């Protein structure tokens, strides 16, 4: 079956790229490593588009409902009959959509990096890591088995770690890589326990079987999972909460978000790929993948909705105060993922209430386009001015016309200006929230105004504000063709992705979901977006005193937002002061004195005894014969007389 071959190739080609570049990159490919990696990924992307096309328009739709297809499935490790870890490939609407997103953005980043990373010392390694990441991410979205997801989930984490720490002689990059790894690992611990809980009750690791067993109200598995209770919550709820914890860690939801801003230490194209468009939405994808099970537990859905909404608002406020342009984008990403999360949280599992699911996936799709574009644009700017700080920028619109134009499109899209992609997906999310929960709708509405404000604050600070003056006139221009091409392609996506009739293809149950746009409903968010943009024009179009005065008058609030509400400090306090002193020290003492002591005692007493008895081995044969006879007599006595 050609679909099997193609889908398998989608995963295997990046793996091949990783092996080729990782093993022979430095010696054989050298400076052509980038081209090798990009060429392989180009094939992957074409195959991904072809597979997605085949799924959506040829094979997937049976009588108006999209069915999951498993082109490949085999048992990898069997624990007991019925309980096995399988490996396989799963095609369904969301995995096909993710295929398109991941391969397309990854391709853009590969092309862009040809220019951006040119001349880097570890250029082949960079492309090897990119290929590893792409392999893991594609494997993750195509997984049929929840344990398979977990494996790729960790691989994604590892490649993220490697890429954040790419500039490994920079201390801050190393620290950021470690932080990202530790925080997400901590969350993954919850994920793993969650997987074990869910699989224990459903007695399977296969996703479709698990969903089927845990959603049929009459099934035995479902009954026991709901009946078992721990601290007032059912086992099912606990399992889902723990799985969500893993998702929240990867998707940088409050309070596990602290790693994402620091992760900006990695090369900017990496931020665009991993920390904006693909890996960070893995948490959203995970919840969507198990959504039928999540929808069984209203408590968990509410929890997800509130965590998502709070994260969206919280990050948007911080984004207004940051001066490092990549950090603004990082908080913006966190805020937008918050939107996707709460959209899932307010979604239900009937065709009337299922809008949130579609909206979430839709926003994931459009967000990938415009946020990758923003990061790549920011990369071009950083490339040009050699700084991440807003104060070193300003007036760049003449110097970098293409970057300026594409960046503007992305800003308009994320702000939710009508007719651009972000508008459509955000409207759907707001509508879904409006139908379910007014509080969340209110937060989301306010946040969308904030979003417009901070994005245009960023935009004006980079491209307008003061005229650009630099001690060293940049010797290279905007970046060559390879850096501009991805910007233009992504800008096309950011502008027009909203016109895809998304509800037709992606919905929680595979049936087409008719979205309806109400102009009256859009008035409030659009007005807020325009107000936000207007405020940004007023404050930042020309360099002036006003922003400084306002931040001074806000005083403590501004300061705490600027310091990211001191979350990092709280974490440091908890880990360094509380965990290390209260738990780690006594544990270390116990380990050093009791455990090691016992082991040492065993060793010492062995040595002591062997010293005492070494005289027996005298080297005299006649003595040996004596022992021999004694042994025989002893055995005879024992066996003939004692144990007879």
């Amino acid at each position, binding site marked *: 079956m050609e679909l099997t071959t193609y889908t398998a190739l989608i995963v295997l080609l990046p793996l091949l790229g990783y092996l080729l570049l990782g093993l022979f990159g430095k010696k054989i490919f050298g400076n052509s490593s980038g081209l090798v990696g990009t060429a392989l990924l180009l094939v992957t992307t074409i195959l991904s588009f072809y597979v997605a096309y085949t799924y959506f328009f040829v094979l997937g739709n049976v009588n108006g409902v999209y069915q999951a297809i498993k082109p490949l499935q085999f048992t990898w490790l069997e624990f007991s009959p019925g309980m096995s870890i399988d490996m396989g490939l799963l095609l369904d609407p969301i995995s096909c959509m993710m295929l398109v997103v991941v391969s397309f953005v990854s391709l853009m980043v590969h092309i862009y990096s040809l220019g951006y990373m040119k001349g880097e010392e570890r250029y082949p390694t960079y492309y090897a890591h990119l290929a590893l990441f792409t392999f893991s991410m594609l494997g993750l979205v195509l997984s049929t088995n929840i344990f398979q997801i977990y494996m790729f989930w960790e691989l994604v984490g590892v490649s993220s770690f490697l890429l954040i720490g790419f500039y490994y002689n920079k201390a801050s990059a190393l620290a950021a890589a470690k932080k990202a790894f530790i925080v997400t690992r901590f969350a993954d611990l919850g994920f793993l326990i969650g997987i074990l809980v869910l699989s224990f009750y459903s007695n399977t690791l296969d996703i479709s079987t698990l969903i089927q067993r845990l959603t049929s109200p009459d099934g035995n598995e479902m009954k026991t999972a709901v009946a078992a209770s721990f601290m007032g919550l059912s086992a099912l709820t606990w399992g889902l909460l723990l799985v969500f914890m893993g998702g929240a860690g990867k998707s940088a939801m409050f309070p596990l978000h602290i790693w994402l801003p620091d992760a900006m230490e990695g090369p900017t194209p990496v931020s665009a790929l991993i920390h904006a468009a693909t890996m960070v939405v893995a948490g959203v994808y995970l919840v969507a993948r198990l959504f039928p099970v999540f929808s069984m537990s209203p408590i968990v859905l509410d929890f997800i909705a509130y965590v998502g909404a709070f994260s969206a608002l919280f990050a948007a406020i911080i984004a207004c105060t940051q001066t490092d342009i990549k950090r603004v984008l990082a908080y913006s990403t966190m805020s937008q993922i918050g939107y996707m999360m709460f959209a899932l949280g307010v979604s239900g599992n009937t065709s009337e209430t299922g809008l949130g699911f579609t909206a979430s996936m839709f926003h994931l799709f459009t967000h990938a386009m415009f946020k990758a574009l923003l990061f790549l644009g920011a990369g071009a700017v950083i490339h040009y001015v050699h700084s991440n700080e807003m104060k070193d920028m300003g007036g760049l619109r003449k110097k970098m016309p293409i970057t300026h134009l594409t960046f503007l499109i992305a800003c308009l899209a994320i702000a939710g200006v009508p007719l651009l992609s972000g508008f459509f997906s955000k409207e759907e999310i707001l509508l879904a929230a409006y139908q379910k929960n007014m509080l969340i709708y209110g937060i989301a509405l306010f946040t969308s105004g904030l979003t417009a404000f901070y994005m245009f604050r960023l935009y004006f600070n980079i491209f307008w504000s003061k005229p650009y003056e630099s001690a060293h006139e940049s010797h290279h221009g905007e970046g060559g063709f390879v850096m501009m091409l991805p910007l233009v392609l992504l800008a096309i996506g950011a502008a027009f992705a909203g016109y895809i009739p998304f509800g037709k293809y992606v919905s929680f149950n595979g049936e087409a979901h008719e979205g309806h746009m109400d102009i009256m409903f859009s008035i409030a968010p659009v007005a807020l977006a325009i107000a936000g943009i207007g405020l940004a024009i007023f404050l930042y179009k020309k360099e002036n005193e006003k922003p400084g005065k306002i931040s001074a008058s806000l005083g403590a609030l501004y300061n705490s937002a600027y310091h990211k509400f001191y979350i990092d400090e709280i974490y440091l306090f908890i880990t360094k002061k509380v965990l290390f002193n209260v738990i780690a020290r006594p544990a270390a003492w116990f380990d050093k004195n009791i455990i090691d002591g016992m082991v040492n005692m065993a*060793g010492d007493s062995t040595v002591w005894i062997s010293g005492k008895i070494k005289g027996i081995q005298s080297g005299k*044969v006649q003595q040996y014969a004596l022992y*021999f006879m004694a042994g025989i007599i002893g055995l005879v006595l*024992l066996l003939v007389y004692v144990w007879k």
Partner: protein
Amino acid sequence: MAYSFFIQMRMELVITGLIFLLLFFKLGKPVSNEVVLTVVSIALLLTTSLSFFGEQEGRQFAGMFVTNPLMFLQKSLLAGAVYLICLLNYDWLRKQEHLAEFFILMLSALLGMFLMISSGNLLMFYLSLELSSIPVAALANFELQKRTSSEAGMKMILSSAFASGILLFGISLVYGSTGTIQFASLPAQLQAGDALQIVAYILFFTGFAFKLSVVPFHFWTADVYEGAPVPVASFLSVVSKGAVAFIFMNIVMKVFLPLGNITYHLLTILAIATIIVGNLFAVRQKNLKRFLAFSSIAQVGFILVGVLNGSTLGIAAVVYFVLVYLFSNLAAFGVVSVITNATGKESVDDYKGLYKNNKLLGWVMAIALFSLAGIPPTAGFFGKLFLIMAGATQASLGFIVIVALNLVVSLFYYLRVVRAIFMDNNEQPLEKVNYSSVVKLGMIICLAGIVLTGLIGWIYEYILSIS
């Protein structure tokens, strides 16, 4: 008869032919050592591979000689081990003045082992056992100019004669009380409660125990290993041990089946004693050859744990373990051989910082010791695992716990050597030692064996299927 005789005894015949060929070499013009080594290596490789083709089941000489697929595999392992010894000790062997004699003796012992494995009655068994041990005593004495070597040969022949006497006494009592020496008809004549038979069995058993270096019949081992040339010590520790373990299993499990109760007690007591004493003595050893001697005693204790199982599972586990042990122990002895041969040094202290100038030797030694200690993912881990799993089906929990604890203790002394090689500081670590590429080949085969035997699952499955 004639035709099947050649087929079924093909391995023995090749070895016999080889012995005669070597004798002829001595008659005519002197033949260079390289030629002898080449001929012997090829013949051994041929013998090793012969077992996998042709008829494998049968009886000859009215049941004196029996064979089956498992026996062929066992013989094949032994021949392969001798081949590896040739490779690993190539540099030492090439220097020998009387190389042909060396091989005549070693191959005679190997022939004895083949016949012993295939023996179908007690007489045949006893004769082939002697054939397999007397030449080894001469081999231990092979370095005539060295006093220690003569001492080793002397101790070996004396102890061996003593043990053979006991064994023969046991056999005569068995014959006296049952009236038969045929393995096939013995089980019907044995009775569970008969004191005379129990004594006969114990005497017979301890004769075996001596050859296997089971405590307290092990004392000769360390002295002989230390004094004997390294190739002979490795032959003793791997090939002799393996051969005796194979026939031991066969006799204890099948022939003396009616005395299973006694076997169970003997094995539990002796296994525990052997493992503990082997470990205790291995801890203190400063000389690597003595160290390996006591380590091999402890390893035999683990083999006994597997034998305890008493069924095909135990047989498969033991054969598999011997296969793994063969690679690991030969690799370790191979490194000792190279270094002793080049520098004459053989104490653990001399090995400090070995890794600095001798990367490959350091790694080979470390991996071999890891495998002997049973650390995953080396094959040694799986070997021990299967043995203990097989034993656990019969033995009590307390017994298994003691065995497992001793496994931990053994880590201590194996890792001590590894630490010396990699981590300990030494003002003057050993210079880079030169050795020929043949030795290197042998080491690489051993390493591959250590790694692959564990990873390739069907090896064990295959052994289990023919057990």
